[in-house]
């Protein structure tokens, strides 16, 4: 398993962020980047020939458990960010009638 292939996933996520034309695609591009980073960390923490880090008296050589603990936290934070962003999308749709970036940012909002 190659870390380079995971880097390609992260780069595709950044490409999606830079070329997305509506808000929902940007939100999901951030999700892709985040899943890629988690995969990278777990891959680097996986030692050759190690066992799953769950308590078992017969095994003595386990893979590194620290990345796994940190990454569960990261997944939860990522889901919170996605949920918050989607909720803001609903509100933006109610105000502007569209979720395209150009329309939403370009309008001078008719009073200023």
């Amino acid at each position, binding site marked *: 398993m190659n870390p380079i*292939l995971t880097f390609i996933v992260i780069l595709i996520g950044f490409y999606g962020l830079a070329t997305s034309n509506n808000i929902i695609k940007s939100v*999901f591009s951030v999700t892709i980047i985040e899943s890629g980073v988690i995969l990278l960390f777990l891959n680097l923490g996986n030692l050759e020939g190690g066992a799953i880090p769950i308590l078992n008296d017969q095994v003595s050589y386990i893979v590194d458990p620290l990345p796994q603990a940190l990454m569960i936290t990261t997944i939860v934070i990522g889901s919170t960010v996605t949920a918050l962003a989607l909720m803001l999308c*609903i509100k933006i749709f109610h105000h502007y009638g569209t979720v395209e970036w150009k329309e939403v940012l370009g309008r001078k909002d008719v*009073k200023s």
Partner: protein
Amino acid sequence: MVDFFQSLTLIEMTAYALQALLIMIAFAIVIHKNNGTIVILIASFSLVTASLYVINNAPDVAIAEVAIGSAIIPLIYVISISRQREFIVLDKAMDDFIIHDNTFTGVGYILLKRFSDFYHLELNITNDPMYYKDTVSRDQVLTEQTNVDLIITKDPQKEDGYVLKGKASNILMSKLEEMVKDYDNIRLIKFKDRDLGE
């Protein structure tokens, strides 16, 4: 190159194949324009990454990823999108503009149906007494604080005329304005965003 492929164990081959699949799904997500397709691709992306986590000896992270990425995120998306595609109209005129002869054939109904079909919105005409509560009965406040998009009232200046009111920041209103130009008994009012300082 062939030696490389022959020296892999079964698990390593699966890992490489899954990673290649992951790259293809990620690329497809970035390219597609239809939001519904993107969400289904996200659910499958999440599933493939969960399998990769298991191959990397991290089953607890895989459980968390499946629960969140494949189940909860598409659920939130479906709820939020189904709220978005509705176009809510409040009918305060209560005469045969919408309902004519007990069926939906009034002039206003045909216009709104044409509009919402053209823009792929779901038309929802309501008369719910919830919108008539004292605190929110002024029309501008209704459009700001509830999720009503359009209000139909009778025109006080013209006999047999109707006024359609909505938010000016909503681009659907400008598109509706174009359609309404052909009808001379229907007028459109757009409420500008008020910002009370502070």
